[in-house]
Each structure stands twice: as C-alpha cells, then as structure tokens.
C-alpha cells in the first residue's frame, strides 16, 4: 500500500507537468467560443490571427486541433461588429461547415463583409 502511495506521489509532478503543457498549448480569446460540451472536450483552439487585407477588410483565421481519435464535423458562425459595437447584418454570418480530422490541426477562415467591421465573435459547435 505504501509503495503504491509513494508511486502516486512520484507521478504527481509528472501529471501536473503534462496538464500545464496541455493548458499552455491552448489559446483563449473571449471573442471565440466553443459552445458545445462535446466540442469543448475534443477541440483545442491553438491560435488566432487577424489582419486588414489590401482591400481594407478584416480577415480572421482561427487555428485549432482535434485531439480525438475520430473525425469531427464543426460549424462556425462569425458575427461582425462595427466601431460602435453594433452587429452588422450580413449573409456571411451563417453557420459554415468545417472539417476537423482526427488528431489533426484545422483552420477556420472568415473575411469581413465591409470596411466598417472592426471586431468579431466566433461561435463554434458540433456540426450536423
């Protein structure tokens, strides 16, 4: 019994280290939300990049990783906001399908509907 306890105590730093490494690899931005429980379990967001294109439109790319052993079909919705934080009505704000292959990274991409869009919210959920 004592040997088992000692073994567990010995493993504790390793477990903590692995957990910290896992958390360190994730990316947290309040503008991007995984809205499904099942998606939160399998999908890890690893980064986000945004830039103003030559045409003056805001372009956003979100990188993620599917940690599960099976293919996940995702859907994402991008809402665009202007400088007054008013939501911009556009058909480009619709649920778009995106594949996330098992144990692989994936990228979601969106471009703003016009030059007024300066902020965004991205919702990600499990696809149908």
């Amino acid at each position: 019994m004592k040997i088992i306890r000692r073994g567990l105590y010995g493993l504790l730093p390793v477990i903590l280290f692995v957990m910290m490494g896992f958390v360190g690899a994730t990316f947290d931005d309040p503008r991007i939300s995984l809205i499904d429980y099942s998606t939160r379990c399998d999908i890890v967001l690893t980064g986000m990049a945004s830039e103003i294109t030559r045409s003056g439109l805001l372009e956003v790319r979100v990188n993620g990783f599917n940690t599960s052993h099976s293919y996940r079909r995702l859907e994402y919705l991008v809402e665009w906001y202007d400088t007054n934080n008013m939501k911009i009505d556009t058909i480009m704000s619709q649920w778009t399908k995106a594949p996330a292959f098992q144990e692989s990274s994936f990228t979601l991409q969106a471009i703003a509907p016009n030059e007024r869009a300066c902020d965004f919210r991205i919702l990600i959920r499990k696809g149908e």
Partner: protein
Amino acid sequence: MVESKKIIRKVVSIIAVVSMTAISTASYADDVENIDMDNDRAGAVMGLDYRDFQTAAGDAVSSMLLSGAVDKRSGGRYVLAISRIINDTMQRIDTDQLVKKIRVELLKSGKVVVTTAINAYGAEDYMSYDTRQLRKSKEFNQRTVAKKGQMIAPELSLSGKIIQRNIRMSHDKQQVEYYFQLTLTDITSGLALWEDEKVIGKRGSNKSVSW
C-alpha cells in the same frame, strides 16, 4: 325546477369547455411552426432549400472579397451588371434566390454597385427608359427629366450556372449533386477576374424527389 336549472347550467358549462378545447386543439392540428432561420437544424431535403442558397451565396461573396477581384485600383466602386444565370436543374428555380443575396451583399460591401438599367435580357427596371420618354412632355419640368448620356455603363458582369446531377447508388439510394458556378467578367477586356464553384451534395432514399 331549481335542480333542472342547475343541470342545464352544468351541461352548458361542459359544452363550453369541450368546444373551447376542440377549437384550441384544431388550431394546432396542422402542426405548423415558423422556421428558426438563424438556427435551423432540421434535416436536409433532396431538393435545394433556402439554406443551400444562403450557403452558396455567402461562400461566393466571401470568395469574391477574399480574392480582391472587386477592389477597384483607382478607388470607388465597380458597376456590375447581372448576366445570365442558367438553371440547369430539374427544379423550377428563380435564380434570383441566389443572385439577389449576392448583389445585396456586394452592395453592402461598398465595393460594387449593380446597374438595373441593363442585364442579359434587356433592362431589369424599365423605368429608367420609360422616364426618358418624358423628354418631350410639357407636363413635366424638363429640368427634372434625365438628360442624355447620364447612365453609367457596367464594368463587370456576373454570370453563372446551377447544375444538377442525379446518381443512382443502389436500388433504394440516390445521390444528388448541385453545382453553383459563378464567373465575374471584366467587360472591357472580356477576362474573367474571379470564378468559383460550390458543390452541395445530398444522399438519400430513391423515394425522395429532387424536382
């Protein structure tokens, strides 16, 4: 006498309750409901529905904006004319279900303005021409009538095709493929500045009809 009145009152109240229940049940009998257009997770249909048009139009505009094809080098907005959008499917589709969404979104983008004075079949809005017939009318203030040479000619043209392919997979299963093909042409040079294709595939029972 008093008892018979009580019985009549009871019967009347029962009839009232029963009839009210019947009316309320009848209003729900057809099981009609409004579609939640923002979060419609109902099953797909073999034909094309509004979600398919939204997807095709949204993807087309995103692709067009990402490509930079509608960025005018000299600044300002391009004038776009809508050319032929051919419906080569087994369904009776008004291609405006697709095109209207695209042109509304392009107009909102501030990069394109659509002319209604000319399209593949003449003018989309004949009023631009009809009001020019007022040039000789004494009833209208001639200063308010459009002068000659005021219309702006289109610089770009949007054309396309919607194609359907039906494939029999087995005795009870079929696959239907829809291709949304769009081209943006520079009218001056005749060169296609942007082209894209969106494929929507559906698989289902042979009993489902796609027309």
